């Protein structure tokens, strides 16, 4: 098995200590960038590597940096460490156990876009991780990797942590920026996008933790080396967070393009308690539901092939659902989540998730008729493409694909129109 690139602490004990990280090639990439490269050259290397954003959207990282408006200053970098998608727990492992590789990535991104200040936005629940990062940032500063005159050049950089306080929406990049500004975490109308109008109205790059953690090795070893992993259009490795009805849930670092079957059966130890696999959510609660047939299991997990199954790879949080789980229960859970986390700014999401929550609860309680399933589907359809940000759009994915692809589960719950009397939950008579 090839050595880990991101979860390197699994190969190298104590890599969370600065001296060990340095012995293992730490800060070679950052030093190379600052001492011997122009910022634009760093961006070119990252573009050539084909690295795509690991937070969910899969947008090319180098291209995002190239959008930074060079007529407005200062520039900012923000690391998105809000990790709140149900089923996702990869950034946490990186920050806890391989923190310096992540911090070096923040530094490289900052140099590339000319930022002298970077913020790491962590969800409030990561309070302890933020404290540890604060210590490590102080150690880096002490060792001369941060502060003024880094490596004897004129480049200066400070990194600060900023804690959120329990709001999934702050993982949306413009809501994240609002939150750093001390406001409600509500998304902005876009365009303009953050590289033009970001933190405090200044050009800002927002990159996910895992994306940033790739940068030190890309700078140290080169774009071609990076492209030797994964597929042509989805180069590199990815951390797949595997959860749900499997024997060995956990984070698995694998090349992009690894088939679902290999993750679920070889690494995850297959389905627990002798059950059969039924469905897969490849992108956490935001995901469409895939019917887990042979074709799906043989599909490579990358940004190009997962869409052929009517879903997205997203943050690669693979939730496995077995035949003991009813899909009407599952969408009740996901809709409850999105209703709770809707920021309330736009009407389609605020109202839509509210009504979907009531409908899914009634359906699961057996207090509904087929018309309610139809109504649920209609509410979801009406939200499609009308929400201000992806949260609302994601909330309907499991609902619509659940009803489309697992109709029998709903029929079983509500019966047919003739045999089921519609019950009004508010009526006592």
């Amino acid at each position: 098995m090839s050595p880990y690139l991101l979860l390197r602490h699994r190969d190298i004990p104590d890599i969370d200590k600065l001296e060990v990280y340095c012995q293992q090639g730490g800060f070679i990439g950052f030093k190379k960038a600052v001492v011997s490269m122009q910022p634009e050259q760093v961006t070119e290397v990252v573009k050539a590597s084909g690295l795509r954003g690991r937070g969910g959207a899969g947008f090319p990282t180098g291209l995002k940096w190239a959008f930074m408006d060079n007529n407005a200053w200062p520039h900012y970098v923000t690391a998105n460490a809000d990790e709140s998608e149900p089923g996702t727990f990869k950034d946490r492992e990186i920050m806890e156990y391989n923190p310096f590789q992540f911090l070096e990535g923040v530094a490289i991104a900052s140099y590339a876009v000319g930022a002298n200040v970077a913020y790491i936005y962590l969800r409030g629940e990561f309070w302890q991780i933020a404290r540890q990062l604060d210590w490590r940032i102080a150690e880096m500063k002490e060792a001369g990797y941060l502060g003024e005159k880094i490596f004897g050049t004129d480049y200066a950089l400070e990194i600060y942590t900023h804690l959120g306080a329990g709001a999934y929406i702050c993982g949306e990049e413009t809501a994240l920026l609002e939150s750093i500004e001390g406001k409600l975490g509500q998304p902005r109308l876009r365009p303009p996008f953050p590289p033009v109008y970001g933190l405090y109205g200044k050009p800002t790059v927002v990159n996910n933790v895992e994306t940033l953690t790739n940068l030190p090795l890309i700078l140290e070893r080169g774009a071609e080396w990076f492209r030797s992993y994964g597929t042509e259009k989805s180069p590199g490795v990815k951390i797949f967070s595997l959860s749900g009805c499997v024997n060995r849930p956990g984070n698995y670092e694998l090349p992009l393009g690894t088939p679902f079957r290999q993750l679920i059966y070889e690494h995850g130890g297959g389905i627990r308690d002798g059950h059969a696999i039924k469905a897969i959510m490849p992108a956490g609660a935001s995901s469409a539901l895939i019917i887990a047939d042979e074709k799906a299991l043989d599909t490579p997990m990358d940004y190009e092939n997962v869409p052929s199954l009517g879903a997205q790879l997203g943050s690669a949080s693979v939730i496995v659902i077995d035949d003991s789980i009813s899909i009407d229960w599952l969408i009740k859970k996901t809709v409850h989540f999105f209703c709770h986390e809707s920021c309330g700014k736009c009407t389609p999401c605020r109202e839509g998730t509210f009504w979907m929550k009531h409908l899914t609860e009634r359906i699961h309680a057996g207090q509904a008729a087929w018309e309610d399933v139809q109504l649920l589907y209609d509410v979801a359809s009406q939200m499609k493409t009308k929400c201000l940000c992806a949260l609302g759009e994601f909330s309907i994915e499991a609902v619509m694909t659940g009803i489309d692809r697992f109709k029998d589960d709903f029929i079983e719950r509500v019966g047919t129109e003739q045999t089921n009397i519609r019950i009004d939950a508010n009526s006592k008579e």
Partner: protein
Amino acid sequence: MWIDSENDMLTEKYSEEILKILAKYPADQKRSAVMALLFLAQRETGYVTRPVMGEIAEITGTLITDVASIVGFYSLFYDEPGGKYRIQVCTDVSCAMRGAEAFVEELCENLGIGVGETTEDGLVTVEKVMCLAGCDKAPLFQVQTGEGLEYHENQTVEKTLDLIHRWRRNR
């Protein structure tokens, strides 16, 4: 200057920490410090009172309404007291498939409270919360106190009751 405020409980106790927090942000962007100051304010009692919200508004150059709206929006801030230890159990999709809902029900039954309620001695509040990014180690919860947050993973009701027992002894 905020030092002149009648209610300067925070400033009196934590003046150094407040300056450290403010130093993270540009001088004209003090509002960015609101959330960090709210965590600081919760350190003593686990919740934020109106006068303290007023003080934070003064420190950050905002209105008390702005501060109160932040407290209302974000789920880790409270404007009323709860148990000394808030046990917050994730019951989202992945955790629910690994027994989190049964765990929380059984735990509450053992403590003689409902979900969202506090034990009679004011020690423990049990709440259901959204995903905590620990889906492979369910059932899990975080414990929120004024001091901060800590994770407890791969839990059983027995283990959790043991933990609560230790808190009770050490109070």
